[in-house]
């Protein structure tokens, strides 16, 4: 069976007058509709909990500074105007905590704070910026923009060939460099929200591996029970499904550490070390090959119902209503067959 055979079956219901092109164009939408009515398709995958650091030259070339930023210490810029450092998170973040080892000195240094929106670096709306002339803990806090993009900046020359750069990037640039650059001992990027894929509709289970997380639906309740939940750092215990323009998952509290890079291999095929990465089981919209033959009949019925309810040659509202009723009957029957095991 295939999409073509579903279209033929659908056209049987329409006495052969259904427009194949139109039926084809509706197919994906009907499958999505079916997956909402019968949310049985799921996927499991690892969401990487990691961040990267790059040191940037004014010409756009970069060197990988991740290891330096995470443990050994990293200069904030060079002594050249326009030099920078970039922080890229696999998740969204709005706070970066620097521990400054050596303050900058000399000159009249000026810094800009920007984020990558998929097309340009735009200025961040900052709540607080680090004082690079002081030692100790300094924070960059900003309002998370609506248009963040998990793509590599186009004018950035990656540090090595297989660098994919799929991160949310923030850039700190010394537009006017000091005569002695500041150096940080450590950087903490406080990631809190990770985007879901377009096909993922709902979270079935989520672990901050290896620990299962509890779903929390009501942010207002968190404000009462855990007033500092937005900034609290610690091993995550809960998650909140964020439903903005795209679905995402926010961890509470914010994870203090990154995931083990060995977890990047994936979850299902091999046993991998996944500690502190996220393992997501999510309900998804199925792809064409995921529709089993015993469900293709429902797709054909839904397609025919939709086609017969639109204006035009195939218009037959009564048929549409009856087909929809039959579809609902069959979906109830299938829910009963599957029972609670495969639906919850």
């Amino acid at each position, binding site marked *: *069976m295939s999409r073509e055979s579903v279209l*033929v*079956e659908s056209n*049987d*219901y*329409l*006495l052969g007058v259904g427009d194949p092109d139109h039926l084809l164009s509706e197919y994906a939408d009907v499958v999505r509709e079916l997956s909402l009515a019968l*949310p*049985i*398709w*799921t*996927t*499991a995958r690892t969401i990487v909990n990691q961040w990267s650091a790059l040191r940037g030259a004014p010409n756009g070339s970069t060197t990988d500074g991740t290891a330096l930023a995470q443990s050994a210490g990293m200069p904030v810029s060079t002594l050249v105007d326009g030099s920078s450092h970039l922080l890229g998170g696999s998740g969204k973040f709005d706070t970066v905590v620097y521990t400054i080892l050596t303050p900058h000195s000399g000159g009249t240094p000026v810094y800009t704070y920007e984020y990558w929106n998929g097309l340009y670096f735009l200025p961040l709306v900052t709540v607080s910026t680090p004082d690079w002339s002081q030692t100790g803990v300094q924070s960059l806090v900003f309002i998370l923009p609506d248009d963040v993009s998990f793509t590599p900046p186009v004018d950035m020359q990656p540090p090595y060939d297989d660098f994919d750069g799929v991160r949310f990037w923030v850039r700190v640039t010394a537009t006017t460099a000091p005569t002695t650059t500041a150096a940080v001992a450590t950087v903490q990027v406080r990631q809190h929200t990770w985007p879901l894929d377009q096909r993922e509709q709902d979270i*079935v*289970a989520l*672990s901050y*591996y*290896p*620990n*299962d997380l509890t779903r929390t639906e009501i942010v207002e309740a968190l404000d009462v029970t855990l007033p500092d939940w937005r900034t609290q750092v610690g091993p995550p215990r809960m998650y909140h499904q964020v439903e903005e323009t795209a679905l995402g998952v926010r961890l509470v509290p914010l994870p203090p550490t990154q995931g083990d890079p060995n977890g990047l291999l994936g*979850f*299902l*095929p*091999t*046993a991998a070390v996944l500690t502190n990465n996220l*393992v997501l*089981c999510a*309900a998804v919209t199925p792809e064409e090959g*995921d529709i*089993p*033959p*015993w469900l293709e*009949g429902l797709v054909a019925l839904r397609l*025919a119902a939709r086609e017969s309810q639109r204006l035009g040659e195939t218009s*037959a509202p*009564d*048929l549409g209503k*009856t*087909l929809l*009723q*039959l579809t609902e*009957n*069959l979906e*109830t*029957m*299938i829910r009963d*067959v*599957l*029972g*609670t*095991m*495969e*639906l*919850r």
Partner: protein
Amino acid sequence: MGTADQLFPSVTAALDDVHRIQTTEAQVLRAMSRAQQWVTLRYRLLRRPFVLPLRAGVPLYHREALAPASVSLLSGSLGGLPLSITPLSALRYRDPQWLQTSGLPTLLYCVRWSLWGVYPVPPVDMTGMVSCLVSARTLTTMTQILEVPDGYRNNIVQVTIGLLLLTRERAMQQGLARIQAGLEMTAGAVRRLQGLTV
């Protein structure tokens, strides 16, 4: 168990189309194929065992890869001992490290329909068995043997006639009623089915 073409006369007679003028053989076959699938699901008629190859350290498995024709998981065993089927929500409550806890698997669970899991996570490769409800295969020829017991032939005929009445004849309420009767979807459907014979 008979073949699809043995039911053909009952269908065309009910449609008053014994000479197959209104309805082609291919259309009847498609409707009958669908009818057989729905009847096998409704009455849970077909069950099949599948091998469950478990891999060391892997808790989750794609159902499609292990048991492509399966509809619903019915039971499982490992080394001759039964695997209890448990809801994922209960397992998560019982052990927050359900994806990691290692040991000889004793539980089987579903992550909705697409994924199966075992708990505890096997420490070494091993092989189990599962039994699943399966759906009938798609009918492609009239001489294909039906997979349902003879006692359910009437159900297949009624659903096939219902689908064709609904669409070919635009006799929508009659068609829907036949399908509902064939699948015993509504109260009183059984009585109606008893009044409709092959």
